Each structure stands twice: as C-alpha cells, then as structure tokens.
C-alpha cells in the first residue's frame, strides 16, 4: 500500500509536469511503438541484409537495428508529454536562458556591474516610453493568455469524461490586437468547435478578459480555431464616412434646415380625438 502523509503521497515541493493518466497513456503508446517499429525495421533490415550476409548474421543485424530504432521511437513517444510542456514554456525558457547567459557573458567579458546597469537601462526605457511599454505589455499578455487558455482547455477536457486527457488542443501562436489578443489553436482528433460552445465566458474569465470569441480560422482545416480575447474596446471613436468628403465643398445653406410644413398639430392638445370606430353589432 502506498505511503500517505498529511501532504499526500508526493514529497513537498514536487511539481507535476505531466499528469499521471497522461503519463500512463504515453507509456502504453511507447511500448506499442517500440514493438511495431522494432518488428518492422528488423524484418526489412534482415531481408535486405540477407542478400549480402549469411542468414543468421542478417537476422542478428535486423534484430539489433530494430531494437535501436524501436528504442529511439519509444523514447520520443514516452517523453512527448514532456516535450509538449517544453513547447508550452518555450518562450520563457528561451528568454531566461538568453538573459542569464548574456549577463554571465557580459560580466565575464567586462565589469560585473555592466550587465546590471544595462538591464536597468533596458527596463527603464521599456517602462519609461509609453508606446514601448504598451507594446511589450501586449506581447506579455500574449504569453500569459497562451498559458491561461491551456489550463482552461485542460479543465474542460478533465470535466468531459468522453474526452481523452491527452487530447489537449495545441496552442499555436498568439499575437496582440487593438482589442486584446488573437490566439490560434489546433484541435486534436476527438475535439471540435462544438465542444467549446457555451464556454466563451469561462475562457474570458480564465484569461482575465472581458470577452472571448471562438471561430473557425480556416476553411481548409476544421481543426484550426481562432480565439479572440477582448480586454478593451478600440471602437469608441467616431468614424467618418468617406462619402462626407464628397460633399464637403457644399455650403451648409445648401442643405434644407427649415421644414416646408408649418409646425401645426405637433402637440397632443393640437390634435382632436378621432371618431370612435364603428363596431359590428352582431359581435
């Protein structure tokens, strides 16, 4: 029986990268992949090698090749959930590595204070210049929204028993829009846009936004879905029609401003009560 404590089975501080059901599912897939690939490669290599080598040696070579190829494929399948996690956090990982490697290189190549000063200057410029700050903030929101959407989709799938837990949609990329962010999502087999119907409000809440709207992003691929996150209204200003420009040369006097009809009967007291309708006495 598993050991249990006040914090459960897991040690304090442990972080789950891949959930247990997903991990089990991919372990099973890895075993199947190993067997299929190993057998296929072994057969093909043995048959090919038997032309030039003795049969026993050809079988040995085939088995070895199959084993190696199967192992490689099984490893890739087994660690695929972890690779996916790396993809989700790719931006942060690349940014952090670049920052620390760059700072370490600069401090070694120059004075230890130089990278800190440079960092302070960059941060100062970014936060000081409004336009730059807004641009950076918009891209940061894109990074945040990708994570929020992923968590939200995971929650939807967890709450839907018919969906396999490993079938999380792939969050492709996100870009800022004047209203918020636009994110493209690739749905895995077993999912469709209908599965997300009625969940727009939940997505908006998860993304700390005002609204979320989903729509098919491609006529060719039903799996490609676009999610528009709205956190501000860019359509508040007055929009002029280009038709106005055509008549800008006309003077105001040209437009009729006084009605041709005398202002009579415009109030209730000026209008007499209409005659009552004749009712059919048979009814």
């Amino acid at each position, binding site marked *: 029986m598993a050991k249990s404590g006040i914090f459960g089975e897991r040690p304090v501080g442990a972080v789950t990268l891949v959930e247990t059901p997903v991990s089990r599912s991919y372990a099973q897939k890895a075993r199947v992949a190993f067997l299929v690939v190993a057998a296929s490669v072994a057969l093909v290599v043995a048959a090919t090698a038997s032309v030039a080598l003795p049969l026993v040696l050809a079988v040995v070579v085939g088995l070895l090749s199959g084993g190696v190829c199967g192992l490689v494929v099984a490893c890739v399948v087994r660690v695929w959930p972890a690779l996916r996690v790396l993809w989700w956090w790719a931006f942060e990982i690349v940014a952090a590595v670049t920052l620390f490697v760059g700072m370490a290189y600069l401090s070694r190549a120059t004075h230890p204070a130089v990278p800190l000063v440079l960092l302070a200057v960059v941060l100062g410029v970014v936060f000081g210049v409004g336009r730059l700050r807004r641009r950076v903030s918009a891209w940061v929101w894109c990074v945040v929204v990708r994570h929020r959407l992923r968590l939200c989709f995971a929650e939807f799938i967890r709450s839907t028993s018919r969906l396999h837990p490993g079938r999380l949609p792939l969050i492709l990329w996100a870009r800022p829009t004047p209203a918020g962010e636009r994110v493209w999502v690739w749905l895995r087999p077993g999912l469709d846009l209908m599965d*997300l119907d009625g969940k727009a409000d939940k997505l908006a809440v998860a993304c700390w936004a005002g609204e979320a709207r989903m*729509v098919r992003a491609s006529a060719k691929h039903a799996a490609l879905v676009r999610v528009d996150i709205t956190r501000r209204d860019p359509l508040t200003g007055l*929009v002029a*029609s280009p038709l106005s420009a055509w*008549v800008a*040369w006309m003077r105001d006097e040209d437009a009729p401003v006084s009605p041709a009809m005398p202002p009579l009967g415009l109030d209730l007291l000026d209008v007499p009560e209409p005659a009552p309708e004749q009712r059919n006495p048979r009814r």
Partner: protein
Amino acid sequence: MSTLTASPVPGGMPADPSVSIFDPVHVGVDEFGHPVRVPLIYRNLLIGGEPGGGKSTLLNLIVAHAALSLDCRLCLLDGKQVELGQWKSCADVFVGPDIMHALATLRRMQIVMDNRYAYLEVAGRRKTQRDDVFSPILVAIDEIAYFSATVGDKKTREDFAGLLRDLVARGRAVGIIVVAATQRPSSDIIPTSLRDLFAWRCAFRCTTNVSSDIVLGHGWADRGWSSNTISPTNPGVGLLIAEGGIPQLIKAAYLDDAACARIAIHAARMRADRKERAA
C-alpha cells in the same frame, strides 16, 4: 473599383465620384481600424438591434452609397418617414406609414422582377451585370415590423411578408437588393422563412443573447459572438456577417443629418442632370 476619397475641384463641383452599386459599400471600420467594405450587389442584408444601436446609421450609409451610384435606383420604405426621408428626392418611390402604398409598391417591384427575368431569359443570360440595360434597385426598409406586424390587418401583413420574401428570394440575380432593418426580427415580426433568406446580417446591440442569435443566426452567442455585450454607450458598434461568413466587430461610419442632406442634394442633382442629358 473606385476609391471614395475626396477630390474637390477648387471653386466648383467635385469631379464625378463615379460610385457604383457594383462597388463594395464602405460601412465603417473593424477592430483593427481597417475599413470594412461590403459588396451588396446580388446580396440582401438584415439589420437588427435595439433602438439607438446604429441600425439607421448603417441603413443611411448604404442608401447614401446607392444614391450617389447613378447605376442604381432607390425604393425606400420608412414607417417613421424621417430615417430615409432625406433621400426622397433621389428615390423612384418613397413609402411612408401607409401599408397599402407599401403593398402596391412591392407588387410593382414583383412585376419589374418578372419582366427582368423574362428579358434575361430571352437574352440567354442568368444575371444582371455592370452597365446592363436595366439598373439594380435598392429596396431599403426601415423598421420592417411596422409593415409586417403593426399596421393593417392580418391579410395585409401576410401579403407584405409574402411579397417581400419573393423579392428577397428571387430578386438577387436581376439586381434587386433588399436591405431591411428592425429591432428584433423574431418570428412574430417576420416569418422565419423570410428571415433565413437574408445571407448577410448585422446585429447592433441587442438586449439578450437570444435576440443577437435571432439576427446573426443560431449558435453564435455560444461561441462568444453576441451583440448583447456591446456597450449601450457606444452606438454604431455591431457584429456583421458578410463575406467569409464569420461575424466581424465593426463600428459603422456616421453621417449626420447635414451630411445626409448634402449628399442627397448632390445625388438628386446628378440624377436630374443625367435625366436631362438622356432626354
């Protein structure tokens, strides 16, 4: 395609804008600030939304474009008279709050439509085209509910809905463009068989998700496309379904009364000049 930019001739009339009803109509901007242009030829448009939402703004933009297009004729129905009243001088027919006049006008339109189809059939063609022998006709109806659910008796309302359905269903190919506006096009206002014929929809702010879905089509609110979330303090913002079949958030361009009056006068003059030249 002509570009609608001002190029006034100093001290006189501007150059002929040469706008055509075959050109897309500029209706406003999208949330990226890009202009939104909607081709209306061979199409019909249903506009819905609560009072003050922007329906008449969009309707006036479309009528203004059609009025300046010398290759388009206007047939206007307006129960309130004032929303489209400024374009009376440019229109072949203007129908006010008179259901019998509205019915007579739609019957005339039906005869025109049949005649046009007969002409095309003899000519061995399937639809009208630019510079054809007959011009497209824009049938703009503001507050369709007035004619289809308010005035007259049951028979006249049914006749109105039936005639309009025929125009929407068959009029496309002969250049009859129907643009109808109402607050809530539910089945008690216009039959669903008529509502579903409108390919293009525009929903300005609605009071509920259901009302928004009635205008745009079922299911859009579930995916977040509801005009219920549009701020009531921001009139002119709406969801437009046109090319692409996907709702698009737009802000309709605004023409104030003075601008409408100027455009109407200019369009009426151009039409009169053209008539004189033709005579």
